């Protein structure tokens, strides 16, 4: 089970308090009518699915209820950093803080 730091509550809590929300920074196309089928497919279905650092959304469902982002190493499952929704992805090198 993961130990996840909620950047709003500013404390580490067990994974059971959270819900996974998929890859982070996947932006919905701003102009649907001008968006091609390929762009829609990429937005809806195609994911980076990296073996290594992955930016992903979590929601503190049994806590503050808010969405935030985490960068996690998908090989070790260690979370490198968590940050608030809307913030840019921080530069990470794979070093565990």
């Amino acid at each position: 089970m993961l130990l996840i730091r909620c950047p709003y509550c500013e404390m580490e809590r067990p994974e059971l308090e959270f819900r996974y929300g998929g890859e982070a920074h996947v932006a919905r196309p701003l102009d649907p009518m001008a968006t091609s089928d390929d762009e829609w497919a990429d937005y809806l279905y195609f994911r980076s699915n990296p073996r290594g650092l992955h930016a992903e959304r979590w929601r503190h469902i049994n806590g503050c209820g808010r969405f935030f982002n985490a960068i996690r190493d998908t090989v070790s499952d260690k979370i490198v950093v968590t940050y608030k929704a809307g913030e840019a992805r921080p530069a990470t090198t794979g070093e565990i803080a």
Partner: protein
Amino acid sequence: MKFSALSVFLQGLKGNRDWPAQWRTPEPKAAYDAIIVGAGGHGLATAYYMAKEHGMRNIAVLEKGWLGGGNTGRNTTIVRSNYLWEESEGIYEHAMKLWEGLSHELNYNVMYSPRGVMMLAHNIHDVQVFKRHVHANRLAGIDNEWLTAEQAKEFCPLLNIERNIRHPVIGASLQRRGGTARHDAVAWGYARGADRLGVDIIQNCEVTGIRRDASGAVSGVETAKGFIATKRVGVVAAGNTSVIMGMAGVRMPLESYPLQALVSEPVKPMMSCVVMSNTVHAYMSQSDKGELVIGAGTDAYTSYSQTGGLHIATHTLDAICELFPAVRRLRMLRNWGGIVDVTPDRSPIIGKPPVPGLFVNCGWGTGGFKATPGSGHVFADLVARGEPNAIAAPFTIDRFRTGRLIDEAAAAAVAH
């Protein structure tokens, strides 16, 4: 060497000391007509059928670890074909028909045992969905029948059908031709069969890059044992498909999740069928060794760790103990995880990405083992001829652009 009653008898007289190795351990050649990436069941079956049915003998299967050491050796060995949509019925029933003759085809006992797969309904939604499956399957000529709770109990006396449990059993669907097969034997049988036809199976040879020529077409692969030239690459890498395809610059509609299973200590025969429950996320059967083989769900997050959270397995054991009270005091021997590549519609991808010479067979998610022979058979056809046959055609990558999804989420046996 061909296995027969006579050869087993004669080797027995000699103390079983003279059995030859079942496949070679070759060094890679400089070039092949085609390369399959991944020596799991699907990859080895692909190579076998390419050699047997399409006469392609100058091919290699590259494996980063040992053959059959990924999801082929980590699944719960269940075989069934009771899927909802015609496209799925096509490929899974194709596989089922191959399972029925596979031991003879390979001259290798894959221990296919059609002992019946029973799927439990715990609420009115399950009843409606499963009855729909039963009717859809029977229209397609695939056996599947509806059982009352009492009939389910008669088929599997171990089952608890008391009404006072959290998720009581109120009915079940049963596919009698479904069952289990020995997962390792499937990999070994296909490996031996392919090797005898001249296929080079190269283990401990990780693919680290895919080289493309000036026109963008595949020209070879970089590996741990150096560059190997080829014009055709078939990627059958399960959970690592996104990584391999990324080497050719192709993005995939896949996410990789850990899926767990566990086995109990071995006990005398107590369960003669497979029982699965979608609603409480548990399924169980008994292996010929006597271990109860239990499948759990996937973790919530993507991962390549080949392990999963303990709370996932615990949740499954809660359900197992309620459905089968007789097993409550059994100890668990081992648990493990495999990395499954899941597509948005929970159906596989058997197709051609937009890179000439590159083919991919992936997205089997939490239920690929049952499809092993059929998947290998149709993918061999695709790699050899360059075009998908009628069974494989619906499973293109392009369906995510056109919207012609094959939504099998309701048919899968574990939580997604």
